[in-house]
C-alpha cells in the first residue's frame, strides 16, 4: 500500500488518490444500495413504519440543526470546536423545565371557575416563557463560557482552546449533575402539548400519529432557522459576523468591535441550542444532566456533514443526520441500538471522502 502510494505520488499524486477515493466511495454506495434493496425485498416494514420513522427523524433533525448552527457559527469565527455546546443545550432544557414546574405549581381559577394550574390556563404564555427562559439562560451560559474559558486564550495554539472547551464541558456536565441530581426528570407539558396525542393518519391500514409536540418542534425549528438566516444575511450584526469570520484583522480595521461580535455569536448560538433543549424536553419528556452530550456530538457531526462554517450546510446536515439515524437502521436492516454507530460512521466516512462536507467549499489553504 505504502509502496504503491510512493510509486504514484511521484507521478500523479493528487489524481491517483482522488480516483482511488472516488472508486471506494462508489463501491461503498453500491454496497449500501444492494443491502437496502435486499432489506426492502423482504418488505419487513410497511409504509406506516417508514412514515413514522421519517417524521421522527425530521423532528430530531430539526433540533440537531439548531445545535449544529451554533457549532458552525463559532467554528466559522474562531476556528474552534465549541465542545461545551451540548452542555449549553442541557442548560436550556433545565431552564424550560423549571418554568413549566413553576407554572404547574401556581393555581389559578379558570374561565368556568375551576381551579387550574397556570400552565393549563394560559398554555401559550407558559410555552413562550419556557422558551424565553431556556434560550436566555443558555445564551447567558454561552456568553460566560466565551468570556471565561475562551477569550483569555485568543491567539493561543489551536489545541489550547479546544482543551479548555473540553474542560468547560466536563465542568458544566458535572455541575448539572451535582446541582440537579443524576435522576431523570420528566417535562410537565401543558395539556394541549401532551406527548402522545396528535393527528392520526391512516397509512397502509394502520394509524400513524403525528404528535403535536413533534409538529410544534419542527415548525419552531424551521422558524428559528429562517430567522437566523435572515439575521446573518440581512442585518448589520449579521454582516459584521460574516466580516469577522472572513478576516478578523481587516474587520477590526473597518471599525468592527471583534470581541463584541464574538460574544454575540456565542449568545446567538446559545439561544438556538437553548431552544433546541426546550424542544427536546417537550418532545421527549425524559432528560437529565447528560441530555446534551450525545445531541452535542451528533450536531457537531451534522455541522461537519454540511460543511463546517456553512450555515445552510449545518441545517441540511442536521436534518440529514436526523433522518439517517432514524431511517438508516431500518434501511440497512440493522439493530436500532446501533443508530449512534451509524452516525459516527457517517462522520468518519464524510471526513474521508469529502472533508469539506456536503455544501462546504474546498477547505481554504493556509496562508503562509
Amino acid at each position, binding site marked *: 500500500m505504502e509502496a504503491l502510494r510512493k510509486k504514484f*505520488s511521484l507521478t500523479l*499524486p*493528487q489524481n491517483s488518490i482522488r480516483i482511488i477515493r472516488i472508486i471506494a466511495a462508489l463501491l461503498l454506495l453500491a454496497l449500501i444500495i444492494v443491502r437496502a434493496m435486499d432489506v426492502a425485498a423482504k418488505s419487513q416494514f410497511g409504509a406506516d413504519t417508514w412514515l413514522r420513522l421519517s417524521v421522527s427523524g425530521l423532528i430530531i433533525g430539526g433540533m440537531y440543526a439548531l445545535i449544529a448552527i451554533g457549532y458552525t457559527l463559532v467554528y466559522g469565527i474562531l476556528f474552534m470546536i465549541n465542545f461545551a455546546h451540548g452542555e449549553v443545550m442541557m442548560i436550556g432544557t433545565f431552564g424550560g423545565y423549571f418554568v413549566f414546574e413553576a407554572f404547574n405549581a401556581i393555581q389559578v381559577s379558570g374561565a368556568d371557575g375551576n381551579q387550574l394550574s397556570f400552565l393549563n390556563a394560559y398554555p401559550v404564555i407558559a410555552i413562550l416563557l419556557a422558551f424565553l427562559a431556556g434560550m436566555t439562560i443558555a445564551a447567558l451560559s454561552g456568553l460566560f463560557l466565551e468570556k471565561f474559558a475562551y477569550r483569555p486564550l485568543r491567539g493561543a495554539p489551536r489545541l489550547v482552546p479546544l482543551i479548555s472547551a473540553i474542560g468547560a464541558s466536563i465542568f458544566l456536565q458535572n455541575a448539572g449533575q451535582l446541582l440537579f441530581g443524576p435522576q431523570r426528570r420528566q417535562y410537565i407539558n401543558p395539556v394541549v402539548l401532551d406527548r402522545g396525542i396528535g393527528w392520526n393518519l391512516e397509512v397502509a391500514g394502520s394509524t400513524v400519529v403525528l404528535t403535536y409536540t413533534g409538529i410544534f418542534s419542527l415548525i419552531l425549528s424551521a422558524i428559528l432557522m429562517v430567522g437566523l438566516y435572515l439575521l446573518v444575511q440581512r442585518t448589520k450584526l449579521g454582516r459584521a459576523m460574516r466580516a469577522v469570520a472572513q478576516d478578523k484583522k481587516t474587520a477590526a480595521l473597518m471599525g468592527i468591535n471583534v470581541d463584541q461580535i464574538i460574544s454575540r455569536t456565542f449568545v446567538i448560538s446559545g439561544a438556538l441550542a437553548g431552544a433546541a433543549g426546550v424542544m427536546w424536553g417537550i418532545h421527549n419528556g425524559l432528560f437529565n444532566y447528560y441530555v446534551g452530550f450525545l445531541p452535542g456530538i451528533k450536531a457537531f457531526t451534522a455541522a461537519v456533514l454540511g460543511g463546517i462554517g456553512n450555515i445552510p450546510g449545518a441545517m441540511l446536515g442536521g436534518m440529514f443526520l436526523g433522518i439517517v439515524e432514524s431511517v438508516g437502521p431500518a434501511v440497512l436492516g440493522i439493530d436500532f441500538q446501533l443508530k449512534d454507530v451509524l452516525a459516527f460512521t457517517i462522520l468518519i466516512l464524510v471526513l474521508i471522502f469529502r472533508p469539506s462536507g456536503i455544501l462546504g467549499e474546498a477547505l481554504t*489553504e493556509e496562508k503562509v
Partner: protein
Amino acid sequence: MKTVLEARQVSKIFGGLVAVNKVDLVVPEGSIASIIGPNGAGKTTLFNCISGFYTPELGDVLFNGRKIQGMLTDKVAAMGIARTYQNIRLFKSMTAVENVMVGFEPHLKHGWITAMIKTPGYVKEQKHIVNEASRLLHYVGLAGLGDNLALNLPYGAQRRLEIARALANQPKLLLLDEPTAGMNPQETDVMKDFIRQIRDDLGITIILIEHDMRVVMNISDQISVLDYGQKIAEGNPKEIQANPRVIEAYLGPGAAALSEKYRREKTHDA
C-alpha cells in the same frame, strides 16, 4: 547555463482572486534571482507554488527539469528546495540547534527502532548532525546561542536561524521571503552580503523576494517584477530601474511620465 527552476504559465486562484497569473520564470544555476512587486502582488504566493504549499491551478513548475507541482512539501524539500518565511516561522519552543537539526530530517537514515536501541550507527548519525547543526549556527553567526529557545532569540537572529534551518536541508535552491524585513540599514547591509556569501560559498541558487531596492539592485543577477499576479517586467537591475511599467506599478499611473519629466528637467538644468 543550466536551469535550476522553471515556472511555466503558473497560475494560482483564490476564490475570484487571481493571485498569480500565468507567470513564467527561468532561474539559471548559481544565480540570485529577485522577485519584486507591490504588496499583494502575489510574490509569496508564487513561492508557495514552487515549494509545494499550493498546487497551481494552471501551469508547471520544473525543478532540474522535473515537474514538481502537486508534490507534498516534504518531498519538495527532500529534492532540494528550501525556504524561509515572510513572517518568521520557527519551532518556537525548541532550541536553535534543535531547529536546525530538524532541517536534516530528509537526509536521516535511522528510524524509531534504531533510536530505541541506540545502535552505534544511530548514535554516530546523531552526533554528526549535532556537530553539523552547531557548525551551521556558527556559519550564520549564531555561535553560542544554540541552546536558547528560538522564541527567546532577537529578531535578527531569528531570521538567521531560519536560514540555517533551510541550509540544513542541503538545498540546491533557496527561497528567501523578505529576509531583511524589519531590519535597520546596517543589518540590511550585513544580510545582503551574507546572502551573496551563501551563493558564493555553497553554490546554492537563490530566489529572493525583497522590498529593499538597494539590496535588490545590488545583488541580483536577474529581477522579475510582479503586479496584480502578472509578471510585468524582467531583466537585470539596470533594465528594471529604467522600465516605466515598473515605476508605474510602484508609484501609480502617471508616475512614470512624471519621473521622466523630472529627470529631463534635471538634465536640462545641468
